[in-house]
């Protein structure tokens, strides 16, 4: 069952030298504009209970797409079919007035996002509880911290019980506690078949929340599918944008290839294989070869879990090791460390780039250059992703 169907959606903005030229064109059929395609031929479905993420660099057409789905602007061509109430959080707390109290703003904002008065009255306590504002709810909004305003806004939105919720860069609000609470609430609503369209630049939360991602570039969908895959393409795109370098993009690697990563291996010192115990000393070895002399280059590794979450990353820049490569020489770079991470399957991403990150100049980047598994625990048992090696002290307390 689809909650939303978008078919061949195109939004063209006409650009004019002067606003008055637009007026002349409305009434006299003289053409005075250039065309700008904000969205080109976009089609996708959103299933009931599905969370769809939209990513793309600034100006890719994300907001234009959301505004059309929300019905705030009209598409130039194509159609949008909505099956149910669409609540769009294009901006948290639309119409909030700082002079009014929290309760008054709940009524007004609630109405703007499609609830009626009785509905709001019924849910008022629940909204206030969820926002955790306590007595502040009867104070004017201007006395709130920005985090508190966001909490109130999100609380209202979540209680409007939409069938489709559009969230634009909003979940990163508030502290970690409230953020987690929102995520939990969204998951709960998802079980009740709420569909969410989520736009964010926060790749981690996209991976955590979304079932599927759409990557927009220059108004078009250029990639669609599971979050990991799409985010990798997005990363290439960002790297390409940052430097007008000709990237050689293959399946999972890209870069200008002045130097290449020839091989990559993860091995436990004891197990002598890519299945390690947690806590075991391990080595990540990278073989690289330079096609030209390169001064001051950084080699980095990044460990990701099976959800694609970044677990740990480091590079020679952080570790204060200077590397200079000579033409046609092959080098072996080894990172030795105890693998103090929890059980599970991991992938290793390796990269050669300049400076701190791959954003300036990316020489070679390989996603999933190697994989390994942590099975079993060496030493003291623990639960979770990382081993923190705590010490326990028990002191008898004298009163």
């Amino acid at each position: 069952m689809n909650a939303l169907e978008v078919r061949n959606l195109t939004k063209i903005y006409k650009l004019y030298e002067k606003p008055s030229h637009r007026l002349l064109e409305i009434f006299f059929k003289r053409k005075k504009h250039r065309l700008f395609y904000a969205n080109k031929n976009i089609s996708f479905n959103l299933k009931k209970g599905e969370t769809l993420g939209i990513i793309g660099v600034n100006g890719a057409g994300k907001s234009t797409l959301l505004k059309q789905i929300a019905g705030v602007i009209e598409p130039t061509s194509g159609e949008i079919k909505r099956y149910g109430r669409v609540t769009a959080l294009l901006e948290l707390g639309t119409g909030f007035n700082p002079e009014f109290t929290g309760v008054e703003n709940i009524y007004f904002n609630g109405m703007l996002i499609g609830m009626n008065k009785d509905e709001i009255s019924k849910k008022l306590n629940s909204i206030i509880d969820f926002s955790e504002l306590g007595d502040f709810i009867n104070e004017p909004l201007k006395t709130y911290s920005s985090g508190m305003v966001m909490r109130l806004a999100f609380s209202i939105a979540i209680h409007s019980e939409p069938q489709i919720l559009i969230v634009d860069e909003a979940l990163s609000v508030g502290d970690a506690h409230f953020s987690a609470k929102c995520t939990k609430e969204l998951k709960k609503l998802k079980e009740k078949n709420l569909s969410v369209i989520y736009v964010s630049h926060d790749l981690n939360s996209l991976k955590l929340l979304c079932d599927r991602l759409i990557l927009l570039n220059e108004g078009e969908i250029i990639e669609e599918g599971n979050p990991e895959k799409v985010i990798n393409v997005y990363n290439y795109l960002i790297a390409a944008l940052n430097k007008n370098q000709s990237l050689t993009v293959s399946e999972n690697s890209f870069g200008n290839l002045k130097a290449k990563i020839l091989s990559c291996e993860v091995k436990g010192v004891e197990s002598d294989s890519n299945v390690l115990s947690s806590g075991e000393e391990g080595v990540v070895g990278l073989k690289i070869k330079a096609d030209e002399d390169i001064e001051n280059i950084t080699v980095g590794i990044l460990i990701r879990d099976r959800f694609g979450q970044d677990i740990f990353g480091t590079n020679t820049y952080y570790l204060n090791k200077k590397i200079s490569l000579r033409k046609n020489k092959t080098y072996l770079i080894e990172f030795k460390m105890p693998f103090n991470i929890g059980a599970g399957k991991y992938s290793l991403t390796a990269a050669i780039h300049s400076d701190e990150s791959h954003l300036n100049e990316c020489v070679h980047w390989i996603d999933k250059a190697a994989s390994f598994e942590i099975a079993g625990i060496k030493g003291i048992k623990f639960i979770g992703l990382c081993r923190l090696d705590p010490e326990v002290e028990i002191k008898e307390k004298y009163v």
Partner: protein
Amino acid sequence: MKEHFKIAFELAFRDLRERYVNTSFGQLWLLISPLVTILIYTVIFSDFMKMRMNLVESKYAYSIYLIPGLLSWNFFAVAVSRISNTFFEKAHLIKKVNIPTFVYYIATFISEFVIYIISMVFGVLFLVVIGQHIGAEFLWLPMLMLLVGMFAFFLGVIFSLFNPFFRDLKEIIPIILQLWFWMTPIIYVKELIYHKYPFLVDFNPFYYFIEPMQTLFLYSKVLYKDVAVSFAIVAVLAVLAVWLYKKMIAEIKDVI
């Protein structure tokens, strides 16, 4: 549609509240300012300046003449300039919430019209206080006010549609309104200019709305012909406004 009107009323209610939020008198100010306006007209013109009208035998004749015209004009000027500014005043909502734009027009209209009604109630109370005859013809007053309201509404809508393309309108409209005010027999009487500049009266659309009201206040008479003309003006403007709105609204949302 019913939902839209509900939202419009809620927006209007909020608009009225916003003006006086955090003032100690609050909504009482809605009553105080028209009251003061009326007091000024009567005290200054009737007592201090001893202005008399040659037409009616009453100490307060000039005030009686002045009140409906000025109150209506005050409403008209504020409503036209506010409605014509809708796309700027409400941009933050129009761009973020899926509510048809005409709802915002209606909301501003309701808010201003409420103030107009309150001030006119005081105007009529003033007549009662000074003992002016109030006949059954006064039942026409709400109708006349509504006509002024519709005139302001549709004119404001038309201006508002051109405003985003031609920002100079924002500066031009107040000037037009000021000129229009002094060219309409509101402060002075029609007879003062009619022999010299008859077109100022005959071709001044606003005068067709205001003369029946002035006549009603002074003589408890209804000028059916003028009312008919003003009705026709409203009808023409309404058709024009709706046509322009439909033609331009999608384009406007792309601009703001």
